[in-house]
């Protein structure tokens, strides 16, 4: 089975994240980059499926040069090789552009299964897996916490507001995973050393037949008009419980008309 797992380098959420004042995009230089947390679950699921069914796991990442750190981590976990889509022209791409560019790469490299984290911690739109399914005409098996593959059939559990749906489809397919689907492994020392020798193919947009006028900030389908740091919340009233903390909180709720 040819599994492609998509990973994204995102700013560490423990640091203060900012937008750039010039073009209103995420300031990636100001913060440490880490692997998007949910993507680690995607990598783990890809490795487990490979271990059970054989095949190969390819890491796909779109991002600037430093995204190689993230790619190496996925390789150190056990993925076989990587494709890094990296081009200045991609800077500022929105979800529509990103899904277009990634779909072009996926068409070029081929896949039986694409696995992604269900959202990134930076933009948090959660739309990319669905957009990829739409663009590639592949079944959308998203927000899943269980995946079973049997030959060319795949069945998953998709989380819903009321519980979950059991969903069936035929490969090739697009899967997005939620936390708790598995427990991502830590790269071993051996894995980290081996990752340094694994092949990473870097693609520019022309290599994947990505049209320059469909990507980047200039092509974005939506734009940030304005932004500002959120004003700090007005300092609240903090009381120490002296046996009446619950009653005092009830007074507050009553004053605010919640009770």
């Amino acid at each position, binding site marked *: 089975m040819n599994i492609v797992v998509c990973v994204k380098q995102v700013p560490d959420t423990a640091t203060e994240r900012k*937008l750039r004042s010039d073009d209103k995009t995420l300031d990636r230089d100001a913060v440490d980059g880490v692997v998007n947390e949910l993507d680690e679950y995607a990598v783990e699921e890809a490795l487990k499926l490979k271990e059970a069914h054989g095949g190969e796991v390819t890491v796909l990442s779109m991002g600037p040069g430093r995204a190689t750190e993230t790619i190496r981590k996925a390789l150190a976990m056990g993925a076989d090789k990587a494709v890094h889509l990296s081009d200045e022209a991609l800077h500022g791409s929105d979800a529509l552009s990103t899904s277009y560019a990634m779909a072009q790469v996926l068409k070029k490299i081929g896949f039986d299964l694409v696995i992604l984290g269900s959202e990134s911690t930076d933009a948090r739109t959660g739309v990319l897996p*669905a957009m990829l399914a739409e*663009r590639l005409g592949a*079944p959308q098996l998203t927000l899943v916490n269980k995946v079973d593959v049997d030959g060319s059939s795949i069945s998953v559990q998709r989380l819903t507001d009321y519980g979950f749906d059991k969903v069936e489809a035929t490969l090739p397919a697009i899967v997005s995973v939620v936390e*708790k689907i598995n427990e991502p492994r830590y790269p071993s020392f051996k894995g980290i050393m081996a990752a340094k020798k694994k092949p990473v193919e870097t693609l520019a947009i022309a290599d994947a037949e990505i049209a320059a006028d469909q990507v980047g900030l200039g092509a974005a*389908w939506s734009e940030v008009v304005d932004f500002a740091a959120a004003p700090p919340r007005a300092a*609240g009233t903090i009381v120490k419980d002296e*046996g009446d903390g619950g009653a005092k909180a*009830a007074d507050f709720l009553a004053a605010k008309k919640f009770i």
Partner: protein
Amino acid sequence: MSEILVLVEHVDGEVKKVTLELLTLARSLGTPAAVWAGPGITGDAKARLAEYGAEKIYVAGSEEIVGYVVAPKAELLAQLVAAKSPAAVLVAATAEGKEIAGRLAVKTDSGVITDAVGLGEGFVADQSIFGGGVNVQSKVRKGTPIVAVRPNSTAPEAAAGAGAEEEVSVSLSDGAKAAKIVERVKQEKGARPELTEAAIVVSGGRGVGSAENFSVIEGLADSLGAAVGASRAATDAGWYPHQFQVGQTGKTVSPQLYIAAGISGAIQHRAGMQTAKTIVAINKDPEAPIFELADYGVVGDLHQVVPQLTEEVDKRK
């Protein structure tokens, strides 16, 4: 005024509150037209949609629309966008709502904005990003604006519309039928409102201490008619089911009132609740970052404070 399509969220034939909020919002920007996807519309549901301003109700009642993951609903909306040229399409910013919006954006070559917490003239949307640290105004600049709006962004207000029903038949492509739903498993959540939609959420964290002790959190939630949430520490410990996790890798909620008990308020959690209108925190540690967000905070043991609060709420109801 131009039509604004509002995709109706419904469960067991009942219209969800977020749809009434979206209709209210749509009324301020154009003429709301509700879109009902799937079978099971009732007279009551139609009356409810009209009560909140739906001038038209497009009903695509075929079973097929709900038999496959997401894609059929996007095809239905794309068909309506082509036929009716609406000024915008509004969906609820639930996980599935955002996926529908995403596919619709690709189909109609339109921009999409997710997790709007407000929407104004020119369909300029307000968003709160980076765990609530930055407020952004954004807008779509190509195609038909598609906006996924978070529940509890607007107070629903009734204002009658004509509610004229129009049946819509959709011919689904094969591609839309690629991911077949073979079974729906409903997990018991009792009579509590749904987490992402609830006006009040009571959440417990590490300080709760055990699965059994979550009954304290549930007790307060039930006396307030609230949903129950949990921090990642609590769901990781197995004290409460994962689907109730509020935070960066869980659900995002934006209720009128959020009560955090035994939750320190790490970024992981704040990213999921910071846009709540009023925040009450109960924690033993006076240095807990959650108090920086709190409109009202009690420094104390939740096992004492929460039961007393529950008792007081019951007394004063």
